[in-house]
């Protein structure tokens, strides 16, 4: 069984490490983490993920910008993105740039089961 490649972009190093640990523990995913928004695009180009978990609020380059870069990249434009956000309301997500319009999002904190099922759901789409 080929493991799906998941790129996790979040400025919280501990969080990305914990996501990696839990997802890889399932045996279904190969996870790479990136803690700087500005490096997310190059990491994606290099890693070629099947799905990107992207934090919304990051210093310097936020999730919306990263998503736009990926969308604009021909090789990556079809890669599904799931936003991870500490902000819970829909309105607030929209206020954050509206870049996540069209992309599913999941609020922090999230349980592993819920995260896995959401990833699988998006990968199958």
């Amino acid at each position: 069984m080929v493991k799906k490649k998941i790129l996790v972009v979040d400025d919280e190093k501990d969080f990305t490490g914990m996501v990696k640990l839990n997802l890889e523990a399932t045996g279904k995913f190969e996870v790479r983490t990136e803690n700087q928004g500005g490096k997310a695009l190059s990491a994606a180009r290099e890693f070629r993920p099947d799905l990107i978990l992207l934090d919304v609020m990051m210093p310097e380059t936020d999730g919306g910008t990263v998503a736009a870069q990926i969308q604009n990249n021909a090789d990556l434009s079809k890669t599904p993105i799931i936003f991870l956000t500490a902000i819970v309301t829909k309105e607030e997500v929209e206020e954050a740039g509206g870049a996540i319009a069209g992309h599913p999002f999941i609020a922090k904190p999230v349980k592993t089961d819920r995260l896995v099922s959401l990833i699988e759901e998006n990968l199958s789409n």
Partner: protein
Amino acid sequence: MKTYSRSFKRYSSKRYLPVPIAICAGFTLSLVSYFILLDVETERIRNSFNNSARTRAAAIGKVFGDRLLILESVRSFIYSSEQLERDQFTDFIRPFMTSEIGLERVSWHPRVLDSERADFEAAARRELLGEYQIIPMSGERGPEGMPPHHEENNPGMIIGPRQKGPPRSGSDEQGPEARPPRSEEHSPDLFIEPRQMGPPGSGSDEQGPGAMPTRRDEYFPVLYIEPQQMSRPMFGLDALTHPVLAEAIERARDSGEAIATAPFELPDITGMEPGFLVVFPVYWRDESHQSLNDRSKNLLGVVLGSFSVSKVIDASIVFVSDEGINIYLSDLSGPENSDEIYSWRSPSQNDPDKNAVSLERALLKELEYRESTEMGGRQWEIRCTPTVGFITARRTWYPVGVFPVGLLVTGLAVGYIISILGRSEKVERMVEERTAQLVRTNKELKETQLQLIQAAKLESIGRLAAGVAHEVKNPLATIQLGVDYLSNSVKDHAESIEVVQKMDVAVNRADTVVRGLVDFSRSEKLDLEKQDLNKIVEESIRLVNHKLMQHHITLKKDLALGLPPLHLDTHKMEQVLINLFMNGIQAMGQEGTLSVRTRLKQEKEGTPLVQVMVEDTGPGIPEEKLDKIFDPFFTTKPTGKGTGLGLSVTRNIVELHDATIEIHNRESNGASFVLTFRNKGEIE
């Protein structure tokens, strides 16, 4: 509102108390004024009458007095004359007779002793160039009680040529009322009638007319008389032969004073007229008349004056204008209960039955003036009564006018008071309304201020919450994933599993708190749409249904039909209702009843209100905590069981809908929340 109306009504009834008081006072004052003025007017009329009557009595007294003075002067004239001649007598007396009305006839009766009689008669015949004989008077009445005064038969009885005095006002119609003849025993009428001439000494009184008088010791025959033209037949009539005159002569002789006879009726051209005679004694000039004996012995003769009462009164009227006063004359020296000898009725309106009002009738009965006066040794009484004309002429409109005027003034005063009170009431009502408005506005301002404070508070909390949410959720997310990892790693270690589970619960709790904070900070935005409140209630109930079952709580639902649609944010309103339901469920714990009701409340004024009531049967809320129940972070639940933000968020959402939320403890047990949608714009 009811209380306000009732108190206002009570206030109004007291306010208008001066109106009936003013009416009563005005009416009473008018009535009192009427009676006072009536009394004053009555007194004025009474005084006026008394003055007028007194003047009349004085005038009558003066006229009588003047006439007596004439007789007195005649007496003095005779007394001082050496040898009295007829012409002297006539010349002296005639001017008075033509001017002094009322004194009808004056005669001189010398005292003639029986021994001198023949000489006297002879001398008289010589002087008169005709018949003269002393003859007796008759005290008898004429046929049928009427005096035989016909001029043809007895010209001498007519009292001289009539000198018409001032016309007797009204007397043509009413005339002096000759009193009915007196009874013989009380006051014998003195009717002087000459006997028919017969041969001297040929008869006596008993011999009838023409008989010679009985011989007496002395005689008082008429020698001179004025006016004499019509009185010739009276020459020789002996005054002493009439008992009334004889008594008067005797009294005059003995007293030396003028003596009046009792009233009798004098023959007049129109009939019999009331009158009387006054006897003046004349003594010998050179002889003493100090003692009774002297006076009896030295009497020279008597002067007789004949008075007509009616003419005296007529003459007195000349002095005073007729004001409408009736005059009555009585002889007080006569027998008791004797009738008035003369009454003079004023020609003015004299009939009390015509146009006389009660006051005038009362005055007519009341007003009477009596004055007694002495004249000729007799007491006379002059009585005056007013006529209706006298009273009506002195009445004014004041007493009658003061009552309607008083009522009119009262009416105006009452009107003024009402207008003042009305204005004052209006002003006070306005003040009350404005005060109420101010109180309302003040309350609203305070509420607004509180809301602003609350909003500021909330804004700070919201800003804090947003920051906290971001900063807390990231580590929470890390922990959550760590817990997940650990739970897989310690599957075989029971104690570790328990620890990890507790950590999982703690993360959940922390997440709930942060989520509540974010909800709280983001609750001010509404997505309003016209909604059926009952539907939102039903949906909210559905969402907590599993919790109701889990806690074995009975639901009592009573939703009113026909509620008007409201502008609501469905999601937020569901959040509100779920919060309230959950609050009740958590308060009751296990078992209990949750009542949910909606209703349309129609108030007297304004638009109808839509209310939702959520009641539980829990322990209720301690009274001292009721005020704080909606404050953020305030909770009655044990630590860890509530964030203290649920009811705060609920109230925010409710107030954003311009609605209100109230909480109170039920009388039995449990708490009751009432949501009231009163904003006009919300209800269509």
